[in-house]
């Protein structure tokens, strides 16, 4: 710059004045800076606070579901009633009326209860599933017939809530689910040491149920697992193949551009739209079974494909061209270069992308609602054609249930889901850290 300063100022005068002005402005500038910084800290604090509140409320609401109130009953397994033939035939043992045994025992414990209504209220203390527990025990060990055994059966969910302190006794009796006489029985049981919080194994081993104390996540977990297996089996090869083609072989033309635009658009399509697609194409057009993990997996495949393709392309891009040249230079065909060199080097990145895509698929609810995986399914699915539900859908279903005990179970199911997601993401992070290659 040849011309030096404005003619009016003259060299030296203006700079000094300016410098003073700048210095004079410094305190204000510093204050503004500090304020700005504070806003940033507040923002971070708020974000983290939301995170903490979210986790804390879920965990506080949910951790109690891992324990369940059980009632100890001393049941006499009367051989004459269970096994009149006396040959321990499993079929006969299966058909015996265990419910009656339990009810007898309850009546024996509270002999002064009379009247149909009160008796039903008394039977209501114990879960409907108690008789099945008893049956399973007898079937597993027929020797027990004729003996008197101490049996811990799950209590009804209302009792469970009472024991966990979620029922307010001061509420007028007419507004309570547990009536005064039931409270009295429970107090008596508690005083006798017949009530205990035990680990809620049912929660992890059972399918869904209308009774909160019997409802478990195993059915949903298996459904999720089957769905994810379908998703993984389809989306990983498809995604990698598409990425390899687009990155390594595709000529630059309109068709490739069209594919790329489509992939990027699909990544931004709301997930429920994939559900609509699945309903229209897989169920209505191809006639695949409704509610099946197969269809769920197909839909989630379409949903996660963009994620996997984009991540795989990034991984392929990071393989330096010198590797490709080196192999081409000694006469490897492009396909051999790809199979022997490029894909193995890009594999960790591809896997990371795939795991992240799977985590995304695991947490997805909306598309599964559209294809009927939202049905009430108590059985554990045995294959990808069986009706099933998935963990997030189970959460969605339970969240709608009015019983207080389901709030706890919903939270517990969320904890389990989040634990799975955390593990998957941790694996992805470890994979990335471990195999990330700097060229």
């Amino acid at each position: 710059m040849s011309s030096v300063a404005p003619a009016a100022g003259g060299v030296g005068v203006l700079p000094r004045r300016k410098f003073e002005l700048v210095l004079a402005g410094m305190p204000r500038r510093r204050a503004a800076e500090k304020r700005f910084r504070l806003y940033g800290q507040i923002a971070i604090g708020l974000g983290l606070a939301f995170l903490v509140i979210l986790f804390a409320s879920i965990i506080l609401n949910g951790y109690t579901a891992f324990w369940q109130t059980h009632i100890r009953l001393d049941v006499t397994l009367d051989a004459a009633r269970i096994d009149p033939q006396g040959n321990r035939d499993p079929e006969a043992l299966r058909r015996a009326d265990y419910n009656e045994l339990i009810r007898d025992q309850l009546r024996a414990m509270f002999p002064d209860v009379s009247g149909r209504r009160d008796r039903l209220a008394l039977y209501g203390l114990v879960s409907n599933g108690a008789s099945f527990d008893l049956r399973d025990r007898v079937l597993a060990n027929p020797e027990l017939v004729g003996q008197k055994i101490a049996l811990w059966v799950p209590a009804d969910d209302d009792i469970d809530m009472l024991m966990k302190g979620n029922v307010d006794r001061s509420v007028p009796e007419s507004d309570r689910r547990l009536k005064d006489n039931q409270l009295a029985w429970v107090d008596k049981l508690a005083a006798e040491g017949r009530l205990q919080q035990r680990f809620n194994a049912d929660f992890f081993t059972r399918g869904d149920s209308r009774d909160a104390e019997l409802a478990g996540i195993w059915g949903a977990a298996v459904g999720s697992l089957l769905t994810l297996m379908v998703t993984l089996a389809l989306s990983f090869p498809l995604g990698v193949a598409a990425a390899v083609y687009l990155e390594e072989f595709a000529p630059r033309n309109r068709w490739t551009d069209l594919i790329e635009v489509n992939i990027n658009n699909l990544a931004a399509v709301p997930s429920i739209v994939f559900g609509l697609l699945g309903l229209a194409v897989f169920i209505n057009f191809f006639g695949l079974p409704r509610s099946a993990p197969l269809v769920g997996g197909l839909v989630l495949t379409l949903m996660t494909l963009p994620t996997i393709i984009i991540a795989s392309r990034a991984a392929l891009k990071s393989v330096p061209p010198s590797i490709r040249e080196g192999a081409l230079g000694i006469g490897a065909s492009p396909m051999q270069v790809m199979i022997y060199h490029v894909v193995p080097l890009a594999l960790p990145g591809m896997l990371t992308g795939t795991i992240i895509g799977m985590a995304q698929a695991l947490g997805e609810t909306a598309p599964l609602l559209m294809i009927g995986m939202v049905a009430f399914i108590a059985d554990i699915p045995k294959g990808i054609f069986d009706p099933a539900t998935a963990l997030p859908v189970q959460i969605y279903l339970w969240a709608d249930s009015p019983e207080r005990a389901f709030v706890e179970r919903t939270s517990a199911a969320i904890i389990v889901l989040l634990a799975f997601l955390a593990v998957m993401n941790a694996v992805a992070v470890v994979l990335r850290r471990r195999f990330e290659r700097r060229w």
Partner: protein
Amino acid sequence: MQPSVLVLVLLLLSSAAYYAGRKRAFTVAQGRLRNLQSLPAYYGLYTAIWCGLPALLLLAAWVSLEHTIITNAVVAGLPEEIRQLGPDRLNLIVNDIKNIVQGNIVSRAPDAVMDAAAGRYRSLLAISHAAMFVVALALAIGAAAFTLTRIKPKQRARNAVETIILALLIACSTIAILTTVGIVLSVLFESIRFFQAVPVTDFLFGLDWSPQIALRADQAGSSGAFGAVPIFAGTFMITLIAMAVAVPIGLMSAIYLSEYATRQVRAVAKPLLEILAGIPTVVYGFFAALIVAPFLRDTGGMFGLGIASESALAAGLVMGIMIIPFVSSLSDDVMNAVPQAMRDGAYGMGATQSGNHPPGDLPGGTARHRRCDPARGVAGDRRDHDRRDGGRPRRQPHREPIRGGHHRDGADRHAADRRPGVRQSQDPRGVRAGVGAVRGDAGPERDRPLHRAQVPGAV
């Protein structure tokens, strides 16, 4: 015979074909690899592909068409009076027939006609499967045998196999297009059906949403209303609330994390915030219903406001929390898009005042957002800028006379204009203000033509 068994058989046959092809290649080459145009494995693959691929494709086509054809055949065989029923009723009957076939629970007591139809369905299915089995196996074995006889040393097996693989890759990549087409078509057809029943204008401008269709004419509340305006309004409102939550928090945390935070804080806070994006939506929904909505209801109640449990406020708030990481990483990208040269320039100008930058921080430092108004403009948020200026309205630096307070803006905006020489000042703090002041005397006006020439060189 189940199709899955057939798939397994075909796969086994293919692997057998692979070994046969490889062996054949060795034989025709008289045991010398060099006589072969391609590696023996490629001849094996070539044979295996010809053995498996056509048969599997046939199988897929067969399975996807079989049920439609058989159903049509069974329906054609139903008594006339059943076929005269409307398509909906007929559909129900067909469903029942299929349920009988599969041994599922049927919606009504099965009668003789349905049992007969189910029997027909079953026998047709059995015939179809048997035929499929024979045809597919014949095709697989025939193709493999033919390919085997054609193997010659000069045959370009590798090229052929690679062409097939490439075709498969192309097919995989077109799934994206198929998906888009599928989405468009499935949404389109359903919409057309919907708009045949409900006029478009009713849907777009109707104010009443009560989606139901009368099954009987005399049903109570038989008139459904399909005005989507309430839904649009709700979505819009929730979006607005969510943006109001997420934009300030996301933007400010991004700026804080990239400009001020120490490396340790960044390493912890950033992934923690990103967890918010990884939490499934259903969890947020539960959180909103369980915690946020009651909290808002009670808080509102304290101030005499009746906030419903299903208010948009709760939904918007929770959605806002959910998208904080998206906003944050988006603003981060936008800020990172500012070239380093500009950043250094602003830094050299004394745009940085924050005295406690960590030693390992980016040289860009605070300089970055001091003059990243253009970038900020992209993010669509100007509030920060005003805040930085102490709430004063933005100035037009080019037209202002050059004076201290204004000069600051000039420095910010013309960060990019500065010469590389300015950067030579290594002192991170004190000198810069001085340098900025000294250089500032030239004023933005005259730096302008200069920077066009210099910026490329400055990088």
